[in-house]
């Protein structure tokens, strides 16, 4: 009797581990829809819902998924010629290049930090710390953009600074 009890309770988990990714995604969406926290135990989150619930797919958005991936690679690729150009010219002669480089660098850094947050502090498992870090990063990036703009406008600019410090 006891064994059948344990068998029944672990059956949804067995299905979950067999189905893999789609089920964990479904559970994440269901948890969000149910607006309750998923309790995490070693072995995986406790899934809500039954095996007969349909899979929910995330709706397409230009901010996520393959659009985000493509934009990230395009940005990283564009940094290569910009850095090379910044090496050979000076920041004062081409302020537009300097500004573009600063903006691209900040965006590249933001996407990198965001990937680290998503990898290590995902909001599915860290329902409080994850969003806090995400919004801290966003506000920090806004501050950095303003700071870079101020520095490039009122002072000599990033490439010039690095060149001067390097040969100081």
């Amino acid at each position, binding site marked *: 009797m006891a064994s059948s009890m344990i068998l029944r309770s672990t059956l949804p988990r067995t299905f979950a581990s067999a189905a893999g990714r789609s089920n964990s995604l479904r559970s994440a969406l269901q948890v969000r829809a149910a607006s309750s926290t998923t309790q995490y135990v070693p072995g995986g989150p406790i899934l809500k819902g039954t095996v007969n619930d349909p899979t929910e797919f995330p709706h397409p958005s230009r901010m996520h998924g393959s659009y985000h991936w493509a934009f990230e690679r395009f940005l990283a690729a564009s940094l290569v010629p910009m850095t090379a150009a910044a090496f050979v010219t000076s920041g004062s002669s081409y302020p537009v290049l300097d500004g573009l480089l600063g903006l691209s660098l900040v965006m590249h850094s933001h996407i990198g930090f965001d990937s680290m947050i998503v990898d290590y502090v995902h909001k599915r498992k860290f329902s409080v710390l994850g969003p806090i870090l995400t919004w801290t990063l966003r506000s*920090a990036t806004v501050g950095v953009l303003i700071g870079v703009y101020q520095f490039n406008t009122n002072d000599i600019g990033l490439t010039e*600074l690095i060149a001067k410090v390097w040969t100081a």
Partner: protein
Amino acid sequence: MMSARIGLGSVTRRVAFAPVIGRNQIALRTLILKRGVQIQSLPPSASEEILNAQRLKRPSSPHFTIYQPQLTWLSSIANRATGGALSALLYGFSLAYLVAPDTFTSVNIVEFVAGLPDYLKYTGKLILAAPFTFHFWNGLRHLSWDMGKLLSLKGAYRAGYAVLGATAISTVALVLM
């Protein structure tokens, strides 16, 4: 059917090792009357709670600490670490300039660096150039993967060694500049 928490290990052992003839009577008497066992009625849904409470107490085997160091994952985490460090430097300086623009003017910074002893200047250049060049060359390696090239194990390793060589050469070039 309700699951019950019953502690009957010693009782069942005694029943099991008793002679066959009297076993049933001993079982009936000992289980029901003699022991005064505490039985707690639980609904079927409680079994998952008990299971998860047990799982939380279980240790986990070493995994991350025993993985053999390999060029693949070492270069990957090094790419992330160098990128994070350089970005933290950029963010730190920009935010510092935002809150205290008069302290962190370029003139102040250049003067401060010029006043340092030579060995500190070379160390500082090394600490800045090595992560930057590694992240740059490994970034190119990563972009080639994104285009579908060098995705085999041989290709990834050859590109990885090329990245290490290019990092060493360009770091030396930058430090001596």
